[in-house]
């Protein structure tokens, strides 16, 4: 039996194909969040409760932006073969992502008191931040898995890092829309 081998140019296109696939996945996720964000304006207009902790929202936004910078640094370190910078920045990203998740948890404690899920704004708030928090946790899991695989197997492949970091940046893009949608517009 003759083995069927793929033409060599297919291997050369693998990275471009991987990227296109990831961007299509990100696009599909964008539709989900666009529907959720638009539901906020449809259901409750630009109503904003006075009890909303805008300062905490701003603080955790800064933490998430900083995590995007460390993730970016981890990605370019991996691309340039700088293993120690990759490891350092990935650990920082994981820590900052964890701090962000704790911050969201603190917001939830306040939110249950002032606008529980039974009221319109509470329903929107918990749905939007909940979906986003799920993506934060899955992004942290993906970053951690890629980090451990590279550490345990001494892999030097770049695509895993790029894919995980792109997903993490997407989580950040979503937050830069959710934050003003929930905390700022009025």
């Amino acid at each position, binding site marked *: 039996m003759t083995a069927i081998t793929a033409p060599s140019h297919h291997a050369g296109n693998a990275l471009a194909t991987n990227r296109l696939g990831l961007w299509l996945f990100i696009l599909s996720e964008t539709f989900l969040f666009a529907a959720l964000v638009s539901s906020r304006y449809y259901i409750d207009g630009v109503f904003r409760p006075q009890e909303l902790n805008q300062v905490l929202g701003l603080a955790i936004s800064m933490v998430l932006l900083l995590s995007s910078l460390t993730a970016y640094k981890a990605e370019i370190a991996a691309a340039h073969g700088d293993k120690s910078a990759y490891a350092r920045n990935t650990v920082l990203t994981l820590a900052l992502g964890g701090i962000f998740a704790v911050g969201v948890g603190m917001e939830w404690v306040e939110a249950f008191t002032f606008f529980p899920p039974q009221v319109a704004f509470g329903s929107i708030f918990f749905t939007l931040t909940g979906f986003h928090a799920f993506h934060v946790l899955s992004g942290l899991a993906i970053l951690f898995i890629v980090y451990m695989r590279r550490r345990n197997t001494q892999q030097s492949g770049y695509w895993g890092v790029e894919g995980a970091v792109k997903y993490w940046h997407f989580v950040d893009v979503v937050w830069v829309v959710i934050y*003003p949608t929930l905390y700022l*517009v009025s």
Partner: protein
Amino acid sequence: MSTADYATEQKTGVIAFVALVVLKIVEYAVAVAMPSGSFLPIAALAVVDGWIILKYFMHMPQLWHSEE
């Protein structure tokens, strides 16, 4: 890729981050200064935020420029 490329890429990331922080602070200031009618300026700033992340952190132009 050279060491110079590496340094340039790191600098680009820091500049993008600083721009994002400034924009977030401006968004917050607009929300505080405008108790009503702040939707349009804040939405415009959020679009700029998203564009910076897509372009400089996520390298979106790679989709139509196959430079690597």
